[in-house]
């Protein structure tokens, strides 16, 4: 432990191999149902779905570039309260990291869930994906998968990865029980799966999977991609930092915001049932609006846009995993993920706290020490 097992792939059918693997898990192990991305029957759209019938796994598609939401919130729903079910969940690395944060915040439990993580191939934005799927139909996933693994790093026919994915260095999952490796080796012939926990190894045994060894080129392939992503990330940090470095610039960055709060609804780590910005505290009386308008000459409505974003940063920047769902959800195409990831990066450096890494870490604002941060005290 950890050991590596293999799934032989026939006729280069990578996706079909994984579908069969998932249905075998439902048939041959203690798992009652599996949360996985599945093609809905009524439209070319992939949605996280809880599958109990192994026969339904023919629609499973963990490789598609569709990423309509961060499923960490769904896993939280499946585990927060107790029930009879034992679930397996198929997650992207950023979904695992977000779930780890939610578990720390007591919004979910690890003990009831078996996590299957995949090397992440990245995703398109929602709008790009629906266009891509519309153009490619049934072949969408295969084309994408072949392009990422065997093609190149350029955009595929004008479709590029979402901005969050282009600068994501966490494409290898951590914290999964089983880790499906896609980078390195030749997934057209065999898919290697790394067992990263005791229950992962037990599952591999139960399924009688054959032992294998890591492909020799994996470390190199992963490292190359890591370097590309880190370079993109650092460029993004530098660019974003200069376009928000004053209040005037920040307000320009957010000028299209209409306070719809979609970014917080989509955010997996913004877990409050009732966000203060949606309460009566911000349901101001007409006279307050008039007072502000009179004092300042004019006031944009709805008010409190920058206030909302700065407060959200104070709440989520310790936990942001950079999944990009905020940008995906913004109706006005504000590149919020760049801003939030930059701020989150700095917060997480300040508290020496990598979000989503270890379920045993305590969130920075949930603890304190007697002698620390003395530099912030005093004039």
């Amino acid at each position, binding site marked *: 432990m950890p050991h590596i097992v293999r799934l032989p792939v026939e006729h280069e059918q990578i996706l079909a191999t994984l579908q069969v693997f998932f249905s075998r898990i439902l048939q041959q192990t203690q798992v009652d149902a599996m949360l996985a991305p599945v093609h809905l029957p009524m439209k070319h759209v992939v949605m996280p779905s809880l599958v109990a019938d192994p026969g339904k796994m023919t629609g499973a598609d963990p490789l598609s570039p569709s990423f309509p939401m961060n499923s960490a919130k769904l896993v939280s729903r499946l585990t927060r309260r107790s029930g009879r079910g034992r679930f397996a969940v198929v997650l992207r690395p950023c979904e695992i990291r977000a779930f780890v944060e939610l578990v720390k915040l007591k919004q979910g439990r690890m003990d009831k869930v078996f996590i299957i993580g995949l090397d992440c191939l990245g995703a398109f934005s929602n709008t790009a994906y629906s266009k891509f799927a519309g153009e490619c139909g049934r072949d969408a996933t295969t084309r994408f998968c072949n392009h990422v693994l065997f093609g190149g790093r350029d955009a595929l026919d004008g479709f590029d990865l979402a901005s969050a994915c282009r600068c994501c260095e966490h494409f290898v999952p951590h914290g999964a029980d089983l880790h499906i490796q896609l980078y390195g080796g030749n997934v057209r012939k065999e898919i290697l799966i790394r067992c990263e926990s005791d229950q992962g190894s037990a599952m591999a045994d139960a399924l009688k999977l054959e032992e294998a060894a890591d492909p020799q080129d994996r470390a190199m392939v992963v490292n190359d991609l890591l370097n590309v992503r880190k370079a993109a990330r650092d460029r993004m940090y530098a660019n974003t930092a200069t376009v928000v*470095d004053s209040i005037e610039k920040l307000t320009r960055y957010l000028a299209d915001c209409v306070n719809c709060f979609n970014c917080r609804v989509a955010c997996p780590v913004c877990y409050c049932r009732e966000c203060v910005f949606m309460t009566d505290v911000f349901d101001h009386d007409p006279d307050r609006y008039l007072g502000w308008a009179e004092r300042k000459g004019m006031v944009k409505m709805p008010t409190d846009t920058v*206030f909302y974003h700065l407060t959200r940063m*104070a709440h989520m920047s310790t936990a942001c995993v950079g999944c990009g769902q905020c940008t995906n959800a913004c109706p006005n195409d504000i590149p919020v993920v760049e801003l939030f990831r930059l701020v989150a990066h*700095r917060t997480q450096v300040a508290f020496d706290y990598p979000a989503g890494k270890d379920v045993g870490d305590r969130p*920075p604002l949930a603890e304190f020490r007697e002698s*620390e*941060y003395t530099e912030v005290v*005093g004039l």
Partner: protein
Amino acid sequence: MKDFEPTVIAFVCNWCTYTAADLAGTSRLAYPPNVRLIRVMCTGMVDPQYVIKALLEGADGVLVSGCHPGDCHYINGNYKARRRIKLLKTILPQFGIEPERLCLTWIGASDGIHFAETMRKLVERLTVLGPGETKLKMVI
């Protein structure tokens, strides 16, 4: 800007700094009138949101002040406050809000002199720094 008078919002804990402010008053210690005191039960209840709101509404500086470490009447509220100030001092300067505009101090109940002196120093510092950008520019 000539004759610039900074506005300071100070969140002071009921048990220590507020009492010190009271003592400064009854001892007739002079300190600048630029400071708006907001009495809170403990620095541990100062939500980062309050600080952000004050700064966005045009405060030139914000002070959070409470009991010395070990003296908090709610045992550890001031340690929690310190982490929140650390957080805000990490976030806000990225948007050009100088870290010097946000201060955290411990001022004990019997320390009226220290209170008056802190207020003088803070106002002096903010006068040199000039008005905050939120006072000059439209904030949405």
